[in-house]
């Protein structure tokens, strides 16, 4: 069954009227896939990721998540889905300063319906899953770039989402740390069957995916298994 199904998505921004960021994008993603969306700068790949992650809405077209059109969801329901079914990993990590790794990973649980008694176990196992157990009490300022991104991945994992969206997850890392982060994501996909959709412009990163969707000028230029 398709976890994600998009049909003829179009996105227009007011300031670039006539030149859509996305123009007739259609594809399906099944549960358990690791998909890389690639494309040059300004191609619309980040816009696509934001729409898929419920952070933005398409100007036209249809988007079905888990078989249900997102048009059927209210703003609060979309927030709930972002919390319970989606995990985000950002290029800039977006960890809260003055909050330890533990506190940062806990953040999504504050907005969740997960019973409080389960929180500690989930937080610790998420942090362990990214190999950051020895840094659990450290603040972001005390972590390396790779460790920061691993903390961000742990934060995305803590609510046990159906899908993880990663926007240039290695963009701020050197090649060694970038590769380590990709290995963690690959491992999550392989062993825990998490669906992972990542946006990148680096071919070396895209090669970790099982499927590559290439976007150019707001259109899908190619969609192939690797």
């Amino acid at each position, binding site marked *: 069954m398709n976890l994600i199904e998009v049909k003829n998505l179009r996105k227009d921004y007011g300031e670039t009227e006539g030149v859509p960021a996305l123009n007739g994008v259609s594809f399906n993603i099944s549960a358990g896939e690791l998909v890389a969306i690639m494309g040059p700068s300004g191609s619309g790949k980040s816009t696509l990721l*934001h729409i898929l*992650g419920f*952070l*933005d809405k398409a100007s036209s077209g249809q988007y079905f998540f888990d078989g249900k059109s997102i048009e059927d969801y209210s*703003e*609060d329901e979309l*927030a*709930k889905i*972002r*919390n*319970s079914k989606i995990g*985000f990993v*950002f290029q800039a990590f*977006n960890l*809260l*300063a*003055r*909050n330890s790794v533990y506190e940062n990973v806990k*953040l*999504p649980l*504050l*907005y*969740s319906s997960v019973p409080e008694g389960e929180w500690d176990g989930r937080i610790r196992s998420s942090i362990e899953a990214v190999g950051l157990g020895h840094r659990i009490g450290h603040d972001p300022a005390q972590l390396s770039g790779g460790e920061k991104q691993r903390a961000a991945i742990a*934060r995305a994992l803590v*609510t046990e989402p159906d899908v993880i969206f990663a926007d240039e997850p290695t963009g701020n890392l050197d090649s060694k740390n970038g590769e380590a982060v990709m290995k963690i994501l690959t491992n999550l996909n392989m062993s825990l069957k998490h669906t992972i959709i990542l946006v990148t412009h680096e071919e070396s990163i895209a090669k970790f995916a099982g499927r590559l969707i290439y976007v150019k000028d707001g259109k899908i230029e190619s969609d192939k298994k690797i």
Partner: protein
Amino acid sequence: MRTKFLFSTSLRGLGAHKSRSFLTILGIVIGITAIILVMSIGQGAQNLILSQIQGMGSKTIVVAPGRQPSGPSDFAQIFSDSLKKRDIDLLSLKENVPYAKHIIPVVFGGENSSYGDETYRMTVFGSDERVFDIFELFPEAGVLFSESEVKGHQPVVVIGSTVKDELFGDSEAVGERIRIKGKNFRIIGVLPKKGQVSFFNFDTMAVIPYTVAQEDIFGIKYYHRFLIEADQESHIDAAVDDIKIVLRNSHNITDPDKDDFFVETQADLASRIGTITDILTLLLVSIAAISLVVGGIGIMNIMLVAVTERTKEIGLRKSIGATNRDILRQFLLEAIVLTSVGGLVGIFLGALFSFIISVVLTKTLGLSWSYSFPVFAAVLGIAVSGIIGLVFGIYPARKASRKNPIEALRYE
């Protein structure tokens, strides 16, 4: 977000900028401190004045000449000559005012007194022997004058402690003679220091028989006041009605609006004083409240800065599941916590300063100033500071909650 985590999140947000948070709440602290201080001092002043009024006895009714002053131009009225001997005679008849126990005439005015080379400007208070009971005055030295000395026009005087100190210093005064308006008076008693009682300060007075005061000092045949003591507190209102009827008949007045006298009970006086001090307190509190508005604007300003600074955090929270309402509640609570902490600090400081002032007034001025913590003002202070947080925090909080998560995440 669950409420307890909302609190911890808000406190963490404020704790990130401790000095800024402290400076932000100063306006609220100053405003609430000022309000508590003003209300506490107002209450203390009211208590002091009321206790002094009550020093005259709760059953005492005062009859004064002229209309009741309703403005500065009416004050000359109280020196009119409408209260005459005939009025005393009529009021003294049991069938006219059955609940009146005593009717005491009073005349008073400022006069110079001298002893040897010493002179002192004092208040000459002419009345009869019963006035000492009404004001609960007992001599520190010597005796008080009697009915026979009043009726016999005897030039005797009982002086207050300040008069004694000014004219005699540490020397004995009883038995000496002082001159008041060219006439010699024999000092028969000295009153102890008593301070203000009702509107009278007996420390600076010389109490003499009213018969002598009328003839030899002021040269008048009328009275400045009648002090009428009712037999019971529950009869005061009835006695007041009877007094008014008798005086209107005596003065041929048919329209109560044209009364040439006014009657006041201790309750009336207390109520009037209470109203005046309440209005003054309200005025001062209103001025102090301006600082609360200024403080509130400061809170709004800082919260707007905080929203801008934490734009990325807002974007992140929204991307991981925070609803607009969660963000609004978080920033609103931060503003309310800021102002409420300011309110609590203000209440503490206001209570502390007003206590210090009460101690200073008691120790240095000898006033029987009772410290009173204005509980109502404290409750109001907390409520007002919370409301200020709500009012001035809502705009920044709404601004935060409406941020587009993608734009917020991209914010640098």
